[in-house]
């Protein structure tokens, strides 16, 4: 699954192989001064008393598929909008995006601001940040929420700076101070050891990125609809400076870990790569996916794409079984919002037991085969409950 774009005629691909990169020499035609002149360092003051109004959610999409975090934000955005008594809007940027527009309303948006332009496909920081800045300047949202995905973080920093407003990264809780109309943006700090609540003063929109899977996805309401406000991008394609040449999508045969309903995760307490296979067997028996702590990944027992925690994925399954994971704070911040947590660990004082719904003190390597057998036998013929949300 690769999305290929036409190669630029000016620069053939061979120019980019290491061997053919010419050594740098003094080149009088270099255009450095031009780049320097672009520096907009003069003060751009945010206009006072903007008629900022409404909560916006950036709807991130890739090849017609919306990132689940966008709908999670629509859910929490709906609650905030109701508290502030203001409209909730989606922002959708891309090309051939018409089929996605009705989803925004079904997940809770009152209005949708959309730009359909070939230059917005695929995502580039350049075109998407210009588009989002244009829409913000035209419509003055009070709050702008973006998923803390790689794309969302790439986009939000550029947009917030261009708008000279505040941005809080990676929030895990959101609320509003209704009297002052402030967004209360809470995020983990110092590796999740503390939570900081951050506010944005006198600038709009108040911007936050939000980690995926910390809010649940709202129910789809098929009967809801609303108005789409279409805008034009108005960019000259010949003036763009970056181009996506190729996109190589991971081959994931087993779905996305951060969308799994059941995760069986293993840690260093399993003792060996062979014992880690017991995790895989249990996951298989109960229709779950495999997770891993950072030490397990660093030991080579599981690939990085399965790492849960601060430096890996945040997950929110219905059931999270942690086998041989002691529960360093960096791991806990990635899984503590799971509905039911089972912890199996030899050390009764392991921090994982502080977040566990059910704790078993014992050797995971000994217990896993028995649990696999018992659950596997009882679930035989029963629905597995592993259908992932769309």
């Amino acid at each position: 699954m690769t999305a290929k774009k036409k190669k630029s005629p000016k620069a053939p691909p061979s120019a980019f192989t290491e061997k053919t990169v010419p050594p740098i020499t003094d080149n009088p035609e270099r255009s450095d001064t031009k780049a320097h002149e672009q520096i907009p360092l003069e003060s751009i003051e945010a206009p006072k008393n903007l008629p900022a109004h409404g909560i916006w959610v950036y709807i991130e999409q890739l090849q017609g598929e919306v990132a689940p975090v966008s709908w999670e934000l629509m859910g929490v955005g709906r609650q905030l909008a109701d508290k502030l008594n203001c409209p909730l809007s989606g922002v959708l940027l891309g090309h051939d995006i018409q089929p996605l527009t009705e989803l925004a309303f079904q997940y809770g948006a009152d209005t949708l601001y959309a730009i359909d332009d070939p230059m917005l496909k695929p995502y580039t920081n350049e075109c998407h940040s210009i588009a989002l800045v244009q829409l913000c300047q035209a419509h003055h949202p009070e709050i702008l929420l973006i998923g803390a995905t790689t794309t969302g973080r790439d986009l939000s920093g550029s947009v917030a700076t261009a708008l000279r407003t505040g941005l809080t990264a990676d929030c895990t809780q959101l609320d509003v101070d209704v009297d002052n109309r402030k967004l209360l943006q809470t995020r983990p700090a110092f590796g999740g050891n503390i939570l900081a609540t951050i506010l944005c003063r006198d600038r709009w929109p108040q911007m936050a990125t939000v980690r995926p899977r910390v809010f649940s996805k709202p129910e789809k309401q098929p009967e809801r609809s609303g108005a789409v406000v279409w805008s034009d991008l108005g960019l000259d394609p010949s003036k763009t400076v970056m181009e996506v040449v190729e996109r190589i999508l991971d081959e994931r045969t087993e779905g996305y870990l951060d969308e799994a309903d059941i995760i069986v995760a293993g840690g260093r307490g399993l003792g060996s790569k062979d014992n880690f296979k017991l995790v895989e067997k249990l996951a298989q028996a109960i229709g779950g996916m495999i997770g891993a702590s950072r030490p397990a990944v660093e030991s080579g027992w599981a690939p990085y794409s399965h790492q849960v925690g601060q430096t890996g994925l945040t997950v929110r399954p219905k059931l999270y079984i942690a086998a041989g994971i002691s529960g360093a704070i960096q791991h806990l911040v990635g899984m503590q919002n799971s509905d039911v947590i089972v912890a199996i660990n030899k050390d009764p004082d392991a921090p994982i037991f502080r977040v566990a719904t059910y704790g078993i003190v014992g050797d995971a390597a000994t217990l896993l085969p028995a649990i696999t057998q018992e659950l596997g036998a009882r679930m035989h013929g029963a629905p597995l409950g592993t259908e992932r949300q769309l």
Partner: protein
Amino acid sequence: MNIAVCLKQVPDTSEVRINPKTNTLMREGIPSIINPYDVHALEEALTIRDRLGGRVTVLTMGPPQATDSLRKAISYGADHAILLTDRAFAGSDTLATSYILAGALGRLMDREPLDLIFCGKQAIDGDTAQVGPGIASRLGWPLLTYVTKIDGIDPTNQVFQVQRKIEVGREVVRCRLPALVTVVKEINEIRYAPLPDLIRAAHYPVEVWTNADLGLDASQLGLKGSPTWVNKISTPPMREKGEVLAGSDVAPAETARILADKLIPHIVVPNR
């Protein structure tokens, strides 16, 4: 190929511990390091310089103690180091910080043209990933984040190509120079500093710029220039106390049966 690398000196957060009684950070005696992602940014800049020629200048904003990180960068092989320090800079959030760094880079470019600016993808103490994008936006330069590989650089045509991480895989992007790049750790392996560079670093005259040198708008600096502020610090809420199902004195099969009784209802109900 002139390259600037923005570094941040951070507390080694892997060493940060929580006082279990007071739930406060125990910061005493925690060593300062160069933000690990920034070390990879520097390494990539040095590699490109060694291949294509040019100069690598490192910059950091911080208190005078941040000179330590700049000397470290010199020991790795950076050609020049600039410390941005001023009381007026203290308390800057990411918006103000990117304003200051962009201002300093602008001043550097009065002296020598830059082709690339490298930053780490984020700092381990703040984890915002906002300053790199902020600098690019201030300079009006193209931005490439989460870069895993520089495929090639063509200085004659002022164009280069990178691979960057995206949520569902990676993408290959071709981009005009000059540009700002933020890197992830996978981009390279760090080399050790050779002895002569260690000696050079110890004596290197680090250049110091204050706002008197930069002449930035005071209303956009420090706390005054920072729209975001921390309103409250709290400890993460604890989940409700769980239930211990069985201890090590119970046979595995029995433990499994007890656990299955609890879990089956959760597993077979398909909706959250």
